C-alpha cells in the first residue's frame, strides 16, 4: 500500500482545489471547481494515515470506506477505487461535490486534529469523474428478474439510489417524476456552477441501462394515486421520495410584490427552465443586470441563489442572514466562494417589510438588526431584534431562501398515511415502512430538508427493506 512513514505523510500539505478565478467565474455558469489533477489526487491520497479505527467512516452518514478507496488511489488503481466507493455510495460524483464534508467525513478525520483533514470530498469527486470520463459504466443487473414491480415517487437522490439498488436485485422499477426532467433538487435546485447537470444526467443514464424506467410529467396524488399504483397499476411496493419542496415565506408586508421570489422559483427558472438564456429559452426571469438582488437566508440554497444572481449580472448581490456568519448552515466552501465572487454579507439582520413602487415592483427592503438572545430549548441561541435599529436596503429583486416544508399533495390523496405534526410522512428510520402496507418513504419528505447523502442513504435502506418485503411469502402477489 502506502510506504511513507506517518511523519512523512503528515508533512505533505493538503492539496488545494484548482478553481476558475473569482472575477471570471462570477460571470459564467461553468463549474467553479476544476477538479484535482492525477498528480494532486495521488499526493492527497498519500496523506491518509490509514487509521485502524477510521473516524472518517464513522463521520460519513453512509459509512463510505474512505481508507480503502483512498489507498487504491495511492496505489494508482483509480477504477478499483471508484468501484470501492460505489459499494457504499451510488452517487459519488455528486456527493464529492455537495456533501458538507466539514461536518461529516472530513470533520471527523484524525488529521484534522492538528493539520488540515484529508480532502475526502475532492478525492471522491476525482475518482468518480475519472470513472465517468473513461467510459466505464454500471452494467445491467446479472441477477434473474424477480417479476416484482416497484414504483418510486420522486427522482431526487433518495428515489434514484433506491431505483438503482432495486434494479440490481432484479426488480422492475419505474420512477415517477412530476417535472419534465428527472433529478429532483440535483436538477432544479443546485446550480450548474456547483453541480454540472451532465453528471446528474449520466447517473440517470446509468439507471436506464440498468433497466429502470422513468415516467416524467406524472404527479402522484393527482395523475395517479398511491392506491392506484398498488391496485390497477400493479406495483407490489411503493417508495415515496418526494422531497421537501414547499417554499416558506416570512409572512411580512410586501412579500408578494413582483420581484420577490422563493428560492425554489428563482432557481427552477434558471436551472430547469434555463431563463439565463432567455430569449433562446422562453421562460423569463427578472432582469438582474444593473440591479440589486437580496437573498434572505444562510444555507446552501441561499448561497446558490445569491451566486446565481451575480452570474445573471446583478450590480450588487446581497445576503441577508439573521445570525452571524459562523452560524450559517451553508457549506464552508460555498461561503468562501461567495465572498471571493463579491457577494456582500448583511448578517444579524432580518427583513421587516418589502417596499414597492406604484406599479407593485420591489424597490427596497426594510431591515432590522438582531442580536443573540437567550438559548432556546434545543440550546441554539435565539435571535432578537435590536430596538430602533431599522434601516432600508434598496433592492429590486429579493429571493427567500428560508428552508422548505412538506408538500401535502400525496398525504392528502392517500388515506391512512400517517404524518407528523409538521406534515412530513411518518416512517421507521431503519425499515422506512409507513403506516400503510407496501408503502415506504424516505429522504427529505420524512426528515425535512437535509442533505443529498442522507437522502441517498435513506433510498438505499428503503431498497433493502423493499427487497426483503418483496421476498416475503405474504407480500403482495399480483396487482
Amino acid at each position: 500500500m502506502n510506504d511513507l512513514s506517518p511523519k512523512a505523510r503528515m508533512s505533505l500539505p493538503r492539496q488545494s482545489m484548482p478553481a476558475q478565478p473569482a472575477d471570471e467565474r462570477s460571470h459564467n455558469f461553468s463549474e467553479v471547481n476544476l477538479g484535482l489533477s492525477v498528480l494532486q489526487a495521488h499526493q492527497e491520497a498519500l496523506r491518509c494515515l490509514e487509521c485502524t479505527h477510521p473516524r472518517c467512516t464513522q463521520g460519513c452518514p453512509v459509512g463510505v470506506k474512505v481508507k480503502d478507496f483512498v489507498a487504491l488511489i495511492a496505489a494508482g488503481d483509480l477504477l478499483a477505487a471508484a468501484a470501492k466507493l460505489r459499494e457504499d455510495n451510488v452517487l459519488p460524483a455528486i456527493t464529492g461535490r455537495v456533501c458538507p464534508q466539514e461536518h461529516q467525513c472530513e470533520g471527523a478525520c484524525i488529521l484534522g486534529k492538528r493539520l488540515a483533514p484529508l480532502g475526502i470530498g475532492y478525492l471522491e469527486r476525482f475518482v468518480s469523474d475519472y470513472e465517468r470520463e473513461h467510459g466505464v459504466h454500471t452494467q445491467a443487473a446479472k441477477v434473474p428478474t424477480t417479476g416484482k414491480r416497484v414504483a418510486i415517487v420522486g427522482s431526487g437522490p433518495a428515489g434514484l439510489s433506491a431505483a438503482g439498488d432495486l434494479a440490481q436485485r432484479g426488480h422492475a422499477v419505474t420512477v415517477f417524476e412530476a417535472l419534465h426532467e428527472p433529478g429532483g433538487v440535483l436538477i432544479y435546485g443546485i446550480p450548474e456552477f456547483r453541480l454540472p447537470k451532465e453528471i446528474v444526467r449520466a447517473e440517470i443514464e446509468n439507471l436506464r441501462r440498468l433497466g429502470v424506467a422513468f415516467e416524467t410529467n406524472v404527479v402522484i396524488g393527482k395523475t395517479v394515486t398511491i392506491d392506484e399504483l398498488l391496485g390497477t397499476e400493479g406495483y407490489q411496493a411503493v417508495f415515496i421520495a418526494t422531497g421537501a419542496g414547499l417554499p416558506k415565506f416570512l409572512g411580512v408586508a410586501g412579500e408578494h410584490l413582483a420581484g420577490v421570489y422563493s428560492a425554489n422559483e428563482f432557481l427552477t427558472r434558471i436551472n430547469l427552465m434555463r431563463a439565463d438564456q432567455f430569449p433562446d429559452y422562453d421562460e423569463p426571469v427578472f432582469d438582474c443586470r444593473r440591479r440589486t438582488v437580496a437573498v434572505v437566508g444562510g444555507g446552501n440554497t441561499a448561497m446558490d441563489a445569491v451566486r446565481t444572481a451575480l452570474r445573471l449580472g446583478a450590480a450588487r448581490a446581497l445576503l441577508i442572514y439573521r445570525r452571524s456568519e459562523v452560524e450559517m448552515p451553508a457549506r464552508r466552501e460555498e461561503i468562501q466562494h461567495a465572498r471571493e465572487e463579491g457577494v456582500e454579507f448583511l448578517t444579524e439582520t432580518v427583513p421587516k417589510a418589502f417596499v414597492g413602487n406604484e406599479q407593485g415592483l420591489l424597490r427596497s427592503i426594510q431591515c432590522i438588526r438582531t442580536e443573540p438572545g437567550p438559548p432556546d430549548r434545543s440550546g441554539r441561541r435565539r435571535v432578537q431584534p435590536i430596538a430602533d435599529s431599522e434601516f432600508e436596503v434598496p433592492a429590486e429583486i429579493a429571493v427567500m431562501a428560508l428552508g422548505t416544508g412538506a408538500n401535502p399533495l400525496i398525504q392528502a390523496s392517500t388515506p391512512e398515511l400517517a404524518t407528523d405534526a409538521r406534515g412530513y410522512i411518518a416512517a421507521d428510520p431503519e425499515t422506512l415502512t409507513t403506516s400503510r402496507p407496501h408503502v415506504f418513504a424516505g429522504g427529505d419528505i420524512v426528515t425535512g430538508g437535509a442533505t443529498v447523502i442522507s437522502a441517498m442513504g435513506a433510498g438505499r435502506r428503503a431498497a433493502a427493506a423493499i427487497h426483503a418485503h418483496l421476498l416475503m411469502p405474504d407480500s403482495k402477489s399480483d396487482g
Partner: protein
Amino acid sequence: MFLIERCEWLAPDIKRFQIRAPRVAQKFQPGQFVIVRVHDHGERIPLTIADADPVAGTITLIVQGVGKTTKLMNRLADGQPIRDVVGPLGNPSQLHRYGTVVVIGGGVGTAIAYPTALGLLRAGTRVVAIIGARTASLLIMEDEMRAASQLLIVTTDDGSRPGPRLVTDALYEVMKSEPKIDLVLAVGPIGMMRAVADMTRPHGILTRVSLNAIMVDGTGMCGGCRVVMGHQTRFACVDGPEFDAHQVDYDLLAQRNRAYREMEQESLRRFEQHPDWDMQWVAEQCRLAERHPEILVNPNTPPNSEAH
C-alpha cells in the same frame, strides 16, 4: 411526448386541440388544468382541460393566442407532438346540485368555465350562462354553452350582437329576474372578475372566480402562483384555481401578472419575426417521434410496458 390528434380554429386566434394524454384523461374533473411545454426550449404554461375522453385517452384544450407560447402552440397541426403535458392539476370545481348558478365566461374564460357549467347541469343545477367577447367573431363555444345551460346570454363589447354589451350588464339583468342565485362562477380577464365580485358582494351571493396566476411547476413547489385571499397567502395551482371572489386581492394579482410584460413582448416580437426558429424545435421533435414512436404516449400500451 403527447400527440395532437386533431385541432381546429374556433375563432381568429382561438384553437381547440385534442391531445392524447391517457393518464390525464382518466383522472380529469371539471375545473382542473394541465401544464404544457410545447418544445425543449419552451416555458411551462397552464391550460384548462375543456373536456376529456377517458376511453379514447384524449383531452381537449382551448388556446387563445395572446403571446409567444400560446401563438406558437396555435401554429401546431394534427399529428404533431407536444413535449410535455402534466396533470390534471388543481382542485376540481364543486359540482353540487345547487338551485341556480350563473356561469360567466369572458373571452377564453368561456372555455375554462364550460366543463364546470356542464358538470353543474348534469348534477341537476339550473345553469344560467353568460358569455362575452369583444366582438361577435371572437365568441367561442356558443353552442356548447347553450347545451350546458338552461339559459344563455351572449354579450359583445362592441354591440355586434344584439343584447347587453358587458357580462356585468347581463348579470345585472339576471340578478333582477332570478328569484334566488346560489352561486356565481366568473372566469375571464381580471377586471371582469373583479367587477362581478363587486356586483355580487353587497347581495351576499356566493361567488367564485378561477384565477390565472403565472405558474411554473403547478405542484406547489415554486410559490410563483401565490395569490392573497383576505390576509392569507394561497398557491393558485394547488389551493385553487377557484377561489372566493370576494376575498381575492385583484390588484396584487394584476401586478404579479404584469411582472414579465417587457420580456413577454420581446419574446413575441422575436417569434413573429422568426417563427422558423421555434418551428425548428418543433420539427426536431416531430422527427424524434417519427423515429421513436414509442416515446409518444400511447393509450393502447399499458403505461409501464416500457420498463421490461
